[in-house]
């Protein structure tokens, strides 16, 4: 796991090492072990390395045997051993043991189609000097990040936006449409970001850049179009389990020890259990517990630790901890966020690093693929209720769904109907499953200033999502539609990014996700919705597959989504907990920055100080305001450069 960057200049200027060097330095947290630069003709490539496979020889940027190809690569190709065997049979000779070299040989063999052979998580750029063509690619689900922009005749790319902003003269401007998307969907819609003119390569994206122009395409599609495979539960569970074992096994390939995140939920317990069975070495597990009982899952973590006998370490999070690190978190997410939940994960990766671990496996992706999130259950109940809207008993299912939301428990049916969009128009909407969440999130926009609202104008993020759905989407099963929306947008845009890569790599920790093995993903798209969610029993087939491999409580406990305190983290006992919270929400400051309405923010803070800002909207709005103001200060106002304080072991130039 590493940081990559570089640029391709079609003008008269040649790339210089100093510029690449500044870009690499901004990514130092991603790769503290080594830095490398390669400049060749119009192209300059940079690499910050976190050594995981072939520690002594896997230096980057790496060239092929005749020097016609150069690569800078972030990520892992987990099936590199199998690919290498095939390549050797075809006469390829290898100089290192690394997966990076396997990519180069695959490219020699299959060209840009080589990515279809990979099982992994990657973002890379290959300079093909014969074709004078730069080829960039990103993994299927969007685990590893990649951004780019143009400045005059120069194409600039990097693992993080910091690297791009480290290139002299790149403009730092806010993209208000990106902001509107973020305050609707929790993420932007690639290629758009919250930075005007800086684009994100979408998950499964490929981009080729040549003097004659650029060409973009997708190397893989998520689709729920295929016929479901009809298999008995038992047979399906067996097939699924053996695939999960293989997906986990190949993710243990590493020359450094591998640990696991253990949340106490079904998915991470499954991953931990499989690792336990695959290896004899002591297994270190890491988890977050919360001081506030409503967020805490310690009891289940402890049960899993006892059952699986791991060497366990936990970090106990308070509201104060979240407030303290929040500015650092936003520096890494590089985007405003509407929830504080990335902050505890930032602290968790720090704990992992303190134990000298660089790689952790986790259960990410399972909720999306097996229908674990409440949003799937909610959509199922809403459809069921909408078929008989006058029913008094059907809406009671919604209350059962959110036992931990006290406010919802006391809601009368008439109001539930309105909040959960039980109306004919919603039922016809392709975004039916996600309307309540996205409409609720959109209320943050009431805090935007008049200027920003005018700039956004009539734009609608929901219209853009509707317009970008794949052909045939309308005919998919509603369960598949909901899964697509979750897996295509929120997963890469927020879960794997702000809650994933960014906060893990902040402390040079690489996450690996067996559930996001594309073979698992493709298999789940063909499992019937009723086997994913049996009546209202979520992840039914997965629980069945796990059986006795996990403690019974992990299979039978009520699903608890991962959440963290928001308003309560920033305000306590009638005042802001940290000085920056008061400074950033001060009316003069809000007025100066022009994003939000000073009066509305003042009222929101007053409510927070009184301890009555308890609604989901209030919590999201406050987190959005604070993170946006921090983001502005860090990225838009700031003229300086980022650099990593830590020492690098070696520089390869």
């Amino acid at each position: 796991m590493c940081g990559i960057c570089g640029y391709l200049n079609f003008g008269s200027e040649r790339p210089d090492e100093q510029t690449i060097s500044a870009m690499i330095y901004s990514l130092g947290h991603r790769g503290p072990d080594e830095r490398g630069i390669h400049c060749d003709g119009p192209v300059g490539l940079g690499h910050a390395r976190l050594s995981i496979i072939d520690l002594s020889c896997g230096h980057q940027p790496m060239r092929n045997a005749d020097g016609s190809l150069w690569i800078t690569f972030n990520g892992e190709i987990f099936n590199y051993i199998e690919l290498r065997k095939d390549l050797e049979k075809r006469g390829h000779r290898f100089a290192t043991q690394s997966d990076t070299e396997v990519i180069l040989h695959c490219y020699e063999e299959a060209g840009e189609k080589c990515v279809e052979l990979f099982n992994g998580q990657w973002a890379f750029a290959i300079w093909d000097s014969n074709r004078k063509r730069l080829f960039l690619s990103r993994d299927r689900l969007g685990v590893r990040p990649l951004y780019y922009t143009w400045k005059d005749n120069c194409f600039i790319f990097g693992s993080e936006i910091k690297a791009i902003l480290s290139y002299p003269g790149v403009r730092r401007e806010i993209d208000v449409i990106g902001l509107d998307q973020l305050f609707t969907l929790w993420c932007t819609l690639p290629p758009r970001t919250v930075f005007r003119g800086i684009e994100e390569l979408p998950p499964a994206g490929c981009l080729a850049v040549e003097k004659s122009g650029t060409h973009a395409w997708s190397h893989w599609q998520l689709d729920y179009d295929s016929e479901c495979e009809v298999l008995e539960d038992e047979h399906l569970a067996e097939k699924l389990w053996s695939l999960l074992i293989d997906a986990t096994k190949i993710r243990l390939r590493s020359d450094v020890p591998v640990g696991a995140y253990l949340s106490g939920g079904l998915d991470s317990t499954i991953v931990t259990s499989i690792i336990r069975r695959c290896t004899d070495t002591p297994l270190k597990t890491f988890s977050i517990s919360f001081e506030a009982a409503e967020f805490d899952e310690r009891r289940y973590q402890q049960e899993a630790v006892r059952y699986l006998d791991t060497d366990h370490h936990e970090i106990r999070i308070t509201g104060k901890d979240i407030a303290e690190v929040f500015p650092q978190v936003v520096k890494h997410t590089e985007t405003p966020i509407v929830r504080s939940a990335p902050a505890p994960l930032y602290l968790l990766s720090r704990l992992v690093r303190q134990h000298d671990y660089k790689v952790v496996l986790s259960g990410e992706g399972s909720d999306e693929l097996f229908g674990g999130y409440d949003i799937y259950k909610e959509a199922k109940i809403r459809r069921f209720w909408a078929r008989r809207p006058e029913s008094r008993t059907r809406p009671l299912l919604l209350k059962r769904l959110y036992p931990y939301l006290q406010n919802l428990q006391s809601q009368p049916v008439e109001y539930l109907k309105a909040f959960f969009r039980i109306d004919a128009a919603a039922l016809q909407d392709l975004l039916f499953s996600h309307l309540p969440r996205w409409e609720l999130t959109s209320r943050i926009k009431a805090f935007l200033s008049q200027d920003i609202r005018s700039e956004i104008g009539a734009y609608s993020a929901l219209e853009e999502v509707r317009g970008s759905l794949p052909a045939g989407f309308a005919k998919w099963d509603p369960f598949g539609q909901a899964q697509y929306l979750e897996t295509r947008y929120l997963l890469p845009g927020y879960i794997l990014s702000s809650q994933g890569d960014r906060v893990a790599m902040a402390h040079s920790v690489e996450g690996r996700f067996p559930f996001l093995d594309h073979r698992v993903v493709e298999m789940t798209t063909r499992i019937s919705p009723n086997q994913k969610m049996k009546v209202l029993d979520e992840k039914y087939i997965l629980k069945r597959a796990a059986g006795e491999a996990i403690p019974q409580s992990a299979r039978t406990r009520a699903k608890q989504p991962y959440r963290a305190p928001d308003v309560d983290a920033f305000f306590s006992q009638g005042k802001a907990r940290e000085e920056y919270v008061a400074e950033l929400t001060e009316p003069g400051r809000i007025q100066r920055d022009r994003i939000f309405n000073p009066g509305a923010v003042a009222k929101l803070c007053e409510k927070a100080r009184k301890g009555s800002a308890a609604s989901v909207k209030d919590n999201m709005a406050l987190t959005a305001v604070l993170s946006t103001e921090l983001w502005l200060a860090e990225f838009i106002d700031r003229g300086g450069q980022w650099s990593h304080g830590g020492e690098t072991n070696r520089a390869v130039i």
Partner: protein
Amino acid sequence: MPSYEPEVREFIVNNFLFGEGGSELSSYDSLLEKGLIDSTGILELVEFVQKKYGIRIEDHEIVPANLDSIDKLVRFIQQKKGEAVG
């Protein structure tokens, strides 16, 4: 007969509109349709009415017909206090 309208309006504007756009909110606008009220909001509203006017609101009375606009709220408070509804 006291007019509850200014107080009710002030509460709604401050708590749900955060002080902004109050002049655009008519007494007949639906709080639900305007997106001003969420599941916590309705409880805040009920608590405000109960405390401020010393009345008890039963569960079956928490319906949009009673609470979903400033006008409806004012009429509901008047009714609960046994005053003639104008």
